[in-house]
């Protein structure tokens, strides 16, 4: 009897591939022999469209990359442009940016937690996570006017101020968020069915991570302690206290623990930011009508930031006119997804959905 290898296509339409991902899997019984991801089903030309408009207009394309954590994408772009043109940003604007970015990090991790539960077969934690996220989205509606795609940051500050009503909503939110998060986490964390399904699955060693360029929570779950907010602090991250969680094993359960702990640390940062925020201007007056001022820039810049998925940055080359010459997006999910063949080899079909949902890819970012 010879071994027969069946090739199955987990197509772009599938209930659990987190977007439009296609994987060609070669199966021998129930064991995966090879897995190749095929992407490109959501390509929307964000880079080329940014190169056809002025600097301020390209912000809305950056919003739509990782639509779950849109503030981080805007921050990456705005920091790169400000670095290119040497724009001074007032202090209150930096604190507001930090507040919004950390709130969005929590919202993104809540989306991950809910869909991860769905992939494991649990139907109820999905609704609990969405209920918690709804409160954060209402806070965003109060501050920026939009729930999901904001267009809030601008070159030289933010677009509008944080109202006192929004601050009240944030204080009310943070008073019981961590307790509810622990309650949701306890459904997963100690349950034997979940632990037996995710322990030892989808392992990535340190060498694999370095060779594929994987960053973010996956990197921290395999023992490397790297966080862009601590290594090269950008906004005012050196003035707040928070810790970076690290685990050694590198499997799906370790990534789960790392992301849960990150949510708690982000809530800690949010409560510190509210206390420390000074009064003042929230935008730079010289750039107040940014569209009317034809901003000219020359040179190149790249500022790395930490998005919920990993290290995110935008590399801009300006050639002296008001339209960027090249905008290149370094998306973390693209690099994380390239480690799929190594991560899946030798495991079973049931581990495929567990591993891919632990990478947490968002396909707006992978395909750009």
């Amino acid at each position: 009897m010879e071994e027969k290898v069946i090739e199955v296509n987990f197509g772009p339409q599938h209930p659990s591939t987190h977007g439009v991902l296609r994987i060609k899997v070669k199966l021998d019984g129930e064991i995966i022999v090879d897995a190749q991801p095929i992407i490109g089903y959501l390509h929307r030309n964000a880079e080329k469209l940014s190169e056809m408009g002025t600097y301020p207009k390209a912000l809305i394309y950056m919003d739509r990359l990782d639509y779950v954590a849109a503030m981080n994408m805007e921050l990456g772009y705005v920091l790169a442009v400000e670095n290119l043109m040497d724009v001074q940003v007032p202090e209150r604007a930096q604190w507001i940016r930090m507040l919004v970015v950390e709130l969005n990090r929590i919202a993104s991790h809540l989306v991950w937690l809910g869909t991860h539960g769905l992939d494991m077969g649990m139907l109820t934690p999905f609704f609990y996570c969405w209920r918690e996220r709804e409160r954060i989205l209402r806070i965003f509606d109060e501050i920026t006017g939009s729930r999901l795609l904001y267009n809030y940051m601008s070159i030289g500050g933010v677009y509008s101020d944080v109202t006192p009503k929004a601050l009240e909503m944030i204080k009310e939110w943070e008073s019981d968020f961590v307790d509810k998060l622990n309650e949701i986490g306890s459904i997963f964390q100690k349950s034997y069915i979940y632990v037996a399904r995710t322990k030892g699955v989808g392992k990535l060693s340190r060498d694999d991570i370095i060779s594929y360029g994987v960053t973010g929570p996956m990197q921290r779950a395999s023992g490397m302690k790297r966080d862009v907010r601590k290594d090269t602090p950008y906004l005012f991250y050196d003035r707040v206290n928070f810790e970076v969680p690290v685990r050694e094993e590198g499997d799906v359960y370790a990534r789960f623990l790392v992301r849960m702990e990150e949510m708690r640390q982000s809530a800690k940062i949010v409560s510190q930011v509210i206390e420390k925020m000074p009064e003042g201007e929230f935008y730079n007056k010289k750039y107040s009508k940014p569209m009317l001022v034809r901003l000219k820039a020359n040179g190149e810049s790249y500022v790395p930031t930490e998005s919920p998925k990993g290290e995110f940055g935008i590399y801009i080359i300006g050639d002296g006119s008001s339209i960027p010459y090249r905008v290149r997006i370094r998306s973390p999910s693209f690099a994380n997804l390239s480690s799929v063949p190594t991560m899946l080899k030798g495991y079973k079909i049931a581990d495929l959905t567990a591993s891919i949902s632990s990478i947490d890819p968002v396909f707006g970012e992978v395909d750009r």
Partner: protein
Amino acid sequence: MTEERVPGPLTGIAGVAKGMWTIFKEGFKPKVTKQVPEEKLSYSERTTGRVFLNVDTCIGCTLCEQICPNGTIRMVDFHYEKSQEFDKKYPNRREIYPSVDVSICTHCNLCEEICPTGAITLEAEVEEVHFRRKNTRYTPEQLGKKEVELWGEERE
């Protein structure tokens, strides 16, 4: 550096029971959904809903048409008699005003940012009803009205 221990089999089975108990208790808490046609959802004042145009203050500079990323706004010829003070302060010599297709608009707020007089804004108006596809392109006069005033004005 998280010091959580990975649970073994016995604590694991107790964990399963605890998870079921947590979910069972949630059944007695109040519901968080709202029945929408009967109860209304609440939005903030800054919600970027539909495009509104204050025809008195529009000067026809066409900047909103140039900045709109997907061609939603187009300038059209529209005759409108402004009162004396508005005509002196906000003259519109070419007699062109923007018209917006509200079904294509992505509510990205760029037109509001760039308008030099603040004529075009996005207000918290999120409910729209239309019967035909071509009725979604609003004339400048319709852009000044709320949705409640527009119902019943469908034309073929």
